[in-house]
């Protein structure tokens, strides 16, 4: 039987799970960070598109978990565990966290990209998930697509050839 693979799309401040042969994609990462957690044996992966480093920044009543680095990583692990994944088998790849508008440094908001990257790394460390590859920083937006079959993360930027990490 021929299985056609589909691309699961993850929006901003959102997270989803994918199993092979399907792939998972998120578009237009600027200061946001795309976090992929995957298990190559089970060929399953989760992707979160986070916007902010820390849920303590939240001033609203409810916390939208996929929006913050600290809540998104934990929530993604739980989602994958529900699918029968062992946390110890998980590996991570991340991309994003650019500084799109570099010369406007007067507020913290302009440094949000690097802060997001730091926060995600800290969370991965907390859960002892090895960070296998990263494509972070710079000043360009990124669109990323992950294949749980190969474990490769495709990173596309404007005006540059796409690369695999």
């Amino acid at each position, binding site marked *: 039987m021929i299985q056609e693979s589909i691309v699961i799309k993850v929006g901003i401040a959102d997270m989803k799970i994918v199993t092979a042969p399907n792939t998972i994609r998120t578009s237009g990462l*600027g200061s946001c960070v795309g976090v992929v957690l995957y298990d190559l044996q089970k060929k399953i992966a989760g992707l979160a598109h986070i*916007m*902010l480093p820390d849920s303590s920044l939240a001033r609203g009543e409810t916390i939208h978990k996929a929006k913050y680095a600290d809540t998104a990583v934990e929530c993604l692990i739980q989602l994958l565990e529900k699918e029968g994944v062992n946390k110890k088998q998980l590996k991570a790849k991340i991309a994003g966290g650019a500084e*799109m508008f570099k010369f406007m440094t007067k507020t913290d908001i302009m440094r949000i990209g690097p802060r997001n990257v730091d926060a995600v790394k800290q969370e991965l460390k907390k859960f002892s998930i090895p960070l296998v590859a990263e494509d972070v920083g710079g000043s360009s*937006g990124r669109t990323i697509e992950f294949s749980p079959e190969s474990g490769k993360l495709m990173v596309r930027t404007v*005006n540059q050839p796409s690369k695999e990490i």
Partner: protein
Amino acid sequence: MLNNNFLNSFQLDILKEIGNIGAGNAATALSGLLNKKIEMNVPSVQVVSFEEMMELVGGADMVVAAVFLQIDGDLTGNMFFLLPIKQATIFIQQLTGMSDFSFDEPSVPELALSAFQEMGNILAGSYLSALSDFLQMHIVPSVPAVGIDMFGAIISYGLIEISQVSDFAIVIDTEIKDPDTMNESDLYKGHFFLLPDPDSFVKLFTKLGVDME
């Protein structure tokens, strides 16, 4: 406080009028700069999720030329002037008289970029000064930043402040068109986006004497 039914129809109309006054002034300035006719649509005011925000100009992946300003003073928020790269190339070619470049190529001449930045600065300035006059509020725009990149990557900067309090944004969106390109596709429509911070709506409606109930 921000949710889908946050605004009543009267408040929506007021925000539309704000877009109308601001963008109307800016479109006139653009028309003067290029010495040609520019068409403007009736502004739309939408309460959108961040994901819906990404779809407003044709997807998070779409490459746009953008000028981005932060607004400070009595009113705070973010303002974007966006052109799809095809239309940005046309406008800047007309403005500078240079015809041998395109914004979708990797190396854009410095002069073209700075012409675009200046264009954005003038347009955003006329948008905001019209608002400031109408509202009798002190509005201070930051130095404009320019970016040519994916729409999602650019517009997310306007959502950072809002995202700390809400999962929705109120966006005042005014479309402009170049009648010469006569093309209805998203590839040729420019946009002014005004994204006031959540607190600013209260200030704005209070200033105009609109009931917040």
